[in-house]
């Protein structure tokens, strides 16, 4: 009878929205890869969706308290894998971020995201400090910092950046003092020139291009301009499925991964963009509602961690597509092609569903 109770309290809205976004993502992947060298992407993504949904179910069935107990294990395991990636990893697009196990390729950095979320939640779930002190903050920064450093070493700046909203969101909700926040802000501002001087030339170029894309329309600004043209030329109703000229004629770069939202916007128009933004809002809204409704701090921070990670990625990705943010190479959760990202996202959402299902004190 417990099963029926759980079933009754299952968050069908979140689950449906997730399935809808993943489904739309599959269609857009099909549209943007058909007739190209990566035409097999659709079938592979479909397979990964199945794997992801299975793991999501697993993450839902096992009580999240049990799962959280294993958080340090997952965390250490993913850190080891990240180190291993740096040693034996496969290099794609100049970044060594892939590892192969028995013919299967995956990105340990995606696994590290969820492991970090779980360890953060486990840590904050035990602490009952009124306001977050410097020591607690240092602990949080350390938990986030280790995988970030390892991922930046690959170097995969895009993935590393997605940890920033996670750290920011959790520390904020955990109750960082305004004073600490101001000091941190000052440190960041003072450190910016130092960071700039340590950026790689291509990274600096991306920032400059973002500030003025017309500066170099055939070089680094090309992606940005082509993305804007794809989105804008879609109009209200879009050019139709498989009819987006920017995508079908391959003017759009990385169209089945980083710029997948542009393909959608071109073929489905403003109405399509509206629908997808709406679905993402529903997902984020339900996750935050879960955090709000969680029966304990562990549940709060699990759901919050997932929402910060996914919401942050969605914002970073779509911001690039509409030209509001510089190109970082962040995949769009649930939509972008890529098995590791999809599975890790579904796993995280499984945790959120878990927290919601067990929100009522038994």
């Amino acid at each position: 009878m417990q099963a029926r109770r759980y079933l009754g309290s299952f968050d069908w809205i979140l689950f449906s929205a997730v399935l809808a976004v993943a489904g739309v993502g599959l269609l857009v992947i099909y549209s943007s890869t058909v007739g190209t060298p990566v035409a097999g992407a659709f079938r592979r993504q479909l397979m990964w969706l199945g794997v992801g949904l299975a793991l999501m179910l697993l993450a839902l069935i096992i009580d999240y308290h049990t799962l959280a107990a294993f958080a340090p294990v997952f965390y250490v395991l993913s850190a080891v894998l990240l180190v291993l990636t740096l040693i034996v990893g496969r290099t794609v697009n100049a970044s060594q971020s892939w590892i192969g196990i028995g013919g299967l390729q995956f990105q340990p950095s995606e696994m590290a995201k969820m492991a970090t979320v779980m360890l953060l939640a486990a840590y904050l779930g035990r602490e009952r400090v009124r306001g977050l002190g410097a020591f607690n903050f240092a602990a949080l920064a350390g938990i986030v910092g280790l995988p970030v450093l390892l991922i930046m070493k690959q170097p995969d700046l895009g993935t590393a950046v997605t940890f920033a909203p996670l750290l920011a969101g959790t520390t904020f909700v955990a109750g960082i003092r305004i004073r600490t926040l101001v000091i941190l802000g000052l440190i960041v501002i003072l450190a910016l020139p130092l960071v700039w001087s340590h950026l790689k030339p291509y990274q600096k170029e991306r920032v400059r291009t973002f500030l003025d894309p017309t500066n170099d329309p055939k070089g680094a600004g090309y992606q940005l301009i082509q993305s804007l043209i794809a989105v804008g030329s879609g109009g209200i109703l879009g050019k139709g499925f498989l009819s987006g000229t920017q995508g079908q004629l391959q003017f759009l770069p990385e169209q089945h991964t980083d710029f997948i939202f542009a393909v959608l916007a071109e073929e489905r128009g403003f109405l399509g963009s509206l629908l997808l933004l709406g679905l993402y809002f529903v997902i984020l809204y339900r996750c935050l509602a879960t955090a709000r409704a969680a029966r304990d701090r562990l549940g709060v921070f699990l759901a919050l961690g997932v929402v910060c990670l996914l919401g942050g990625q969605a914002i970073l990705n779509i911001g690039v597509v509409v030209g509001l943010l510089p190109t970082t190479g962040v995949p769009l959760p649930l939509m972008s092609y890529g098995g590791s990202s999809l599975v890790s996202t579904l796993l995280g959402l499984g945790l959120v569903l878990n927290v919601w299902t067990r929100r009522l004190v038994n």
Partner: protein
Amino acid sequence: MANPPSFRGAQDYTEANRLGTRLTVIHVVFAATLIVYLMSFWYLQVIKSDHYRRLSDSNRLRRVTMAPLRGVITDREQHPLADNRIAFNIRLNRDKVADLEGFLPDLSRMLGTDVPTLRQRLDRARTRPAFEPVILKEDVSLAEAAFIESRRLELPMLSVEVESRRHYLHGTMAAHALGYVGEVSEEQIKQENDGTYELGEIVGKAGVEKSYDGKLRGAPGWKQVVVNSHGREIEEVQEGHRPTPGRALSLTLDLDLQRTLEEAFADEAGSAVFLDPDSGEVLAMISRPAFDPNVFATRFSQDTWDGLVRDAKHPLQNRASLSKFAPGSVFKIVMAIAALEDGIAGPGRGDMCTGGWRFGDRTYQCWAVRKGGHGYVKMREAIVHSCNVYFYRLGHEMGIERISRWAHLLGFGEPTGIDLPREEAGTVPDPEWKQRVMPRDPVWHPGETISVSIGQGALEVTPLQMAVFAATVGNGGTIWRPHLIRAREIREGVQEAENTDARVRTVPLQARTLEVIKDAMWGVVNELGTGSRALIAGRDVCAKTGTAQVFKASRDVDADKLTKEKRDHAWFIGFAPRDHPQIAWAVFVQNGGHGGTTAAPIARAVLEKFFAKKDGGSPDRRPPEARVASATLSR
């Protein structure tokens, strides 16, 4: 807010509230960001949608110019001489290659073209928009084209272009008359201020290909096509304007005569022109050594080009209209006409040739010096046996001004006006000329008049001028502008005659003069004269031989014992038949020795072919023994 996180114990209540408030902040941040994004999408997709739609169209739609098919060139009987064929070019999309310089070695390996050549080709296109493909290798084999085409995915920056290419069916045959085509040069574009030429266009560079380029070229068309980001054409969306094909040209050349001439010329260097003496139509024209105009049909043949331009034998030069040589004894015809017309001498004027004439401090020799001269000769014998002494004295008597005036009147010293891009005028010297070109020695010496009298000295003519002169004598005084175009297509399948009246002027020559000259020229061939190797029974061939000196000692040395380069140039001009001639010619063999030996047989071969075609059968030939006999007897 309505459902704050539940915690154990009352002390947690404020803590839970604080968490709830902060979660609301996160919520607001997400909601606000999504609203900003929604506004961005609204701005891009609704407000600015037309703008981006246009940009998207200009991205994928490309105006492509379509080259017209060049007009076909045929001979006078519509046998094709130059047409077009399909060729494959390999092109590079520069904007698809990030590191062009670094990619060059790979390209070089794939295409089998060295890096400097590739770089040169890319340099040529530096002023063109980056999306415009650059042709890297032209006229590749079907296998090479298939190799590139089958690697579209690995090599998206390379594509295969199909285009039509000029094709000269007979290779080197009539190469100088036809000329060749090539990519329009930057200088040519600058010269043509009316903007008729576009970069990359194929235009005529020499011969009738150049002089009739405006008719042959046609007009390019355009169409609008959808291209992908690699510049590959996906589909045609708008039929713009089809190219207007160039007009066909029908030449005056006769392929059969031309072929016979080419064969008869064998490996000799020189030139020959055969004309219709009643219209100025060029029936055959040769210049040797020749080149194959097909090698110019490709855009990039720098090495071949350099080789041809630097070749010491100048194969590109059309010797018919651009090379000047002393006319030698042929000029005696001009001398005779001038003397007869101006009443300086009658046909009965006689003179004694003892093998030379001492004038001033020099002896002017006759080529017959070794057998003691020609003895007493009248004008006719002087022409038939080409006696120098006779014309030395006649020239001295006439004076240079009179000689010069008649030479000019008969068409020397001025371009013939042939429909080829460039032409030399030659030189007819006189005291005024010498003053102008030789300021250091401006005085005309009487000895120079004597040299000019036998066609030497500063006198220079082109083989073409000589052919026109032969036609003028043959037809009784009418100078025709020689031309290569007989008719041109004015619209599909309809031809219009060109050059219908190419008459330059008629020199009023007395019937008696013509009779004497023609009779003497008949004798040159038919009475064991210097041109007897051109004898064709029943055809009344009239001709005059000439020798342009190359090596000073050649008068005293047997020509056959000299090395080839030191031998004299051989002339053989004439017309046939004697009355109402149907063909006139000038044959010039460089270092050919004596005109009667090397040049006459060439003319004879063409004449036989000409009359055979006229009669529809083979010409009357003398038995070979008779020809051998006459060859040993005559000189």
